[in-house]
C-alpha cells in the first residue's frame, strides 16, 4: 500500500503445496497453492519471490493473483528459464516462496469511479485490487490489453465480479485493435487509475492520468536480484520528497531531489506523479 511503507505485513518463507495447475492459454500457467498464512496476509498488489525448486537460478518475482481462504494463486507467462521450470510443476509438488512482499495498491479511499489498466501478464497484479474496490462499492472499469485474444486470460472473472470491461488486442482479434491506453485516453475521466503492465504502457498511463488531472498508482517491473530490498538492483528514480523515497539526503544536504527507490521494497506500486523516469 503506497504511502504506508512501514506497515508490518509479516513476510516469511512459506512452504506451499500445489493444489491445482491450469494452462489458461498456450504458455500461460495458473498455479494454485496451499498457503494459509499468505492467503490471510496478502494485500492487493503484493508479490512473492518464488524459490526455484532446482536451486539453479535466482528466485522469481510473481504477483499474488488470487488469495482466498487457505489458497493463493500465481499466474505467469512462460518467458524464460525460470518460468519454464515453474511450468513443469504438478499437483502435490512443493513450492517454497517468500512473501507477501512489497507495498501494493492503496484501495483505502472512497473513490467511486476507478479505472484499472492491465497489460498482458499485468492482469495478475490487479485482481485483488479490483475485488477490494468492488467490495468497497466502487464502479470499476477494467481496461485490459494483450497481444491477441487468446492472451486476454481470465477477463470473464472480472466481468462476473462486476467490472466493466474495455478490451484491446494488438491484432484486433478481440476488443479494440491497438493499445489499451488508446481506449483509456478516449474514455471518460475516472477519479483514480490503477495500472500494471509493461513500462511503456505505464508511462503512457501516467501521461494520460496527468492529462485527466487525476492520480495514478502504477505497479512497476524491473529485473530483480534479491527481491527483498537488499541489493538496490531493481530501482526507479523517484522524487526525494515522496513519502516512499528511501533515506537519502536532499539537495540542500549534499544529496539530490531525485533518488532511486527500490521497486521491490518501496514499491512495486508508486504514484505516477512522483516518478522521475
Amino acid at each position, binding site marked *: 500500500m503506497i504511502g504506508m511503507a512501514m506497515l508490518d505485513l*509479516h513476510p516469511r*518463507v512459506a512452504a506451499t503445496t500445489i493444489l491445482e495447475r491450469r494452462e489458461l492459454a498456450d504458455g500461460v500457467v495458473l498455479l494454485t497453492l496451499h498457503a494459509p498464512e499468505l492467503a490471510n496476509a496478502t494485500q492487493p498488489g503484493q508479490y512473492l519471490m518464488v524459490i526455484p525448486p532446482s536451486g539453479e*537460478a535466482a528466485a522469481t518475482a510473481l504477483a499474488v493473483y488470487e488469495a482466498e481462504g487457505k489458497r493463493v494463486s500465481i499466474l505467469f507467462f512462460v518467458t524464460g528459464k525460470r518460468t519454464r521450470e515453474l511450468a513443469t510443476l504438478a499437483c502435490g509438488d512443493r513450492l517454497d516462496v517468500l512473501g507477501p512482499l512489497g507495498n501494493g495498491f492503496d484501495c483505502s479511499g472512497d473513490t467511486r469511479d476507478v479505472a484499472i489498466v492491465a497489460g498482458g501478464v499485468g492482469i495478475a497484479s490487479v485482481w485483488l485490487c479490483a475485488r477490494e474496490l468492488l467490495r468497497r462499492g466502487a464502479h470499476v472499469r477494467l481496461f485490459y490489453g494483450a497481444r491477441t485474444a487468446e492472451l486476454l486470460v481470465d477477463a470473464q472473472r472480472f466481468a462476473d465480479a462486476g467490472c466493466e470491461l474495455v478490451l484491446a488486442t494488438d491484432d484486433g482479434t478481440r476488443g479494440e485493435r491497438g493499445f489499451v491506453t488508446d481506449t483509456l485516453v478516449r474514455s471518460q475521466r475516472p477519479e483514480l487509475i490503477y495500472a500494471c503492465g509493461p513500462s511503456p504502457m505505464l508511462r503512457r498511463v501516467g501521461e494520460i492520468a496527468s492529462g485527466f488531472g487525476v492520480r495514478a498508482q502504477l505497479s512497476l517491473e524491473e529485473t530483480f536480484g534479491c527481491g527483498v530490498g537488499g541489493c*538496490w*538492483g*531493481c530501482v526507479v528514480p523517484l522524487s526525494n520528497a515522496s513519502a516512499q523515497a528511501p*533515506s537519502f539526503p536532499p539537495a540542500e544536504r549534499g*544529496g539530490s531531489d531525485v533518488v532511486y527507490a527500490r521497486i521491490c521494497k518501496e514499491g512495486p506500486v508508486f504514484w505516477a506523479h512522483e516518478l522521475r523516469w
Partner: protein
Amino acid sequence: MNPQPALAIKLGKLELAFPTLMGSGCYGSGEEFAPFADLSKIGAIVLKSVTRLPRLGNPTPRLVHTPAGMLNAIGLQNPGIEWYLERELHKYAGRPCKIVGSVAGFEIDDYAYVCERLAARDEIEAIELNVSCPNVAREGETFGCDPDLTARVVEAARATTNKTLIVKLSPNVTDIVAIARQAENSGADALAVINTVRGMAIDVETWRPRLGNITGGLSGPAIRPIAVLAVYEIAQAVSIPIVGQGGIETLADALEFFLAGATAISIGTANFTDPRIPERLVAELQAYLTRRNIASIEEIVGRAHVEIATAHQYEGDEG
C-alpha cells in the same frame, strides 16, 4: 561422541561464530533478510559500501541474468558517510551477528576519511576496503588493479583504525597475487577474494547494452572456478586469512574454497536464489566435519595444495 566441530574462526581481531559472511551489496543491512533467515546462524554481514559523498548510483537497468550468474552495476548508491552515520547506522546495533562496514572511494583521502569515521562507531566490528568495484565511472577500480595504489590505500586506511581491516581484491588484473602481497605488506588483516568480474550483455532486440551503465560485474556460479583459483594462488603467497567468495551455493562449493585456502567464505548472489542457503551451509558444514571426524573447520583450510604431477614429462614438455 565427539564434541561439535568448531566453526568459529578469526579474521585479525574479528572473532566470528561461523565462517560465513554475507557479501557486501548483496545483503543490505541484514534487516531486509531477517524475516527469511536466522541472522544468529551467520558469521557477519558486510554492509553495502559507503562513500564520502552521497551517490545516486547507476542508471537502470542495473541487473541482468546471465548463464549461471548475473551482472550488476549498482554504482555504489549510498547516502554518503554523514547521513549514513546519522540516520542509518544506529539501526544495526543489536543484530545477532557481527557487522562489517564496507568503504569505497575515489581518492586515497576519501578512503581514509570514511574508514576513520565508520570504524569509530561501536556498531561496526571490522572494515572491508572495497578497492575493486567495477561499476563506477572513474578510477574506482584502478586502486585494486595497481599494486602501488593498493598499498597506499591500505596504508592510509590502516592508519585510521585498529579494527580488523579486510581488503577486497579485484579479479580483473594480470597478477592478483602481487596485489594480495601488497595488501598484506601494507597492513591488511585479511583479504576478500574475489569481487565481481567485469562483463557486459547486449539486448539483441534493441541492439543496446542491457545495463544502464553498459558494463557490470559478473557474480554467481559462473565465476566460481575463477574465484577458487585466486584463493588457491593467494593462499600460497600470503599468511593473512582469506574470505573466499564467488558463486558459493552448496556445501561442495563452500568446501572448494576452504580447501583452496579460505578461512571464511562469503555468500552473495546465492541469497537471491534462497535466503536460507547461509544457514543451511553452516548446518551442512557442521555435519560434514562431524562425519569426517574433523575437529574444526580450520583443519581443512588449504588442504588441496599439491604439486603438479610430472608423470610422463620429457624434453619437448619442458617448454
